[in-house]
């Protein structure tokens, strides 16, 4: 951006949310971003949706390993230690 905007629109906010949560927005952009969130309930709700989306994605971390796979891998581990 050529200069600091005085304000941003909701349409611009939704493009910046991920960077904001990463703390990757430059200081002046983060300031207008937060200022916008202060008056705009719609965008506050949107940011909450993105946070909850990230939480839900984080829940995918653990997939149960099939027993057969685990057994096979354990055998490989024992072979490796012996070799």
């Amino acid at each position: 951006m050529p200069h600091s905007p005085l304000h941003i629109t909701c349409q611009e906010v939704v493009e910046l949310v991920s960077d904001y949560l990463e703390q990757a927005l430059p200081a002046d952009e983060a300031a207008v971003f937060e200022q916008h969130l202060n008056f705009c309930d719609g965008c506050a709700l949107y940011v909450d949706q993105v946070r909850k989306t990230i939480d839900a994605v984080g829940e995918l971390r653990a997939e149960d390993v099939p027993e057969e796979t685990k057994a096979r891998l354990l055998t490989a581990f024992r072979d490796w230690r012996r070799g």
Partner: protein
Amino acid sequence: MSSVAVIRDEAGLVERLRGGDEAAFETLVESYYGMMLSVAQSYVKTRAVAEEVLQDAWLAVLQGLDRFEGRSSLKTWIISIVINIAKTRGAREARTVPFSSMAPEGEEPAVEPERFRGAGDGFPGHWWAYPANWSERPEEVILGRETLGVVTEAIEQLPDAQRVVITMRDIAGCSAEEVCETLELTEGNQRVLLHRARSRVRAALERHLDAA
């Protein structure tokens, strides 16, 4: 799906693995299997092939364990191994992520433009109607089995580059630096891919929750 603890003491775990500690190996497998599968599936066609990639990857992990110096995190190192094997496998199947074009291309609005007021309206660029309040829904719904199924499918539908970035960042918990190094991405490109991936998954979740 069970919730497995994040491995905090990787150095300690590596020591135990080198000592032949089977419980340590089981912990390693249980903690990282899901994320490895998700990464592999960003590069190869089917889950069956992805599982074969993982089989090879685990062997490579064991073979490399004595030489592992800990310069990167164990997690990132394992992911790199998966990616290398998956790339080779994917190339053989004529389906790869062309690495020169890992960079995000084109435009992809996070939210359809029609949901915002237009240039001729008062308050241009602002919401016509506000997004729904997901905090009003019980947590069990947002993090429940059905919703996580929607999230899983949304991730599977992502373009490959977006898929591997969101998998490494938001599923595996790798740092931005680790992702940039492993995937040879600039910081800016990594952020764009992550932003697009998260936006698409949010949209999929929204369609599901609004229909409920």
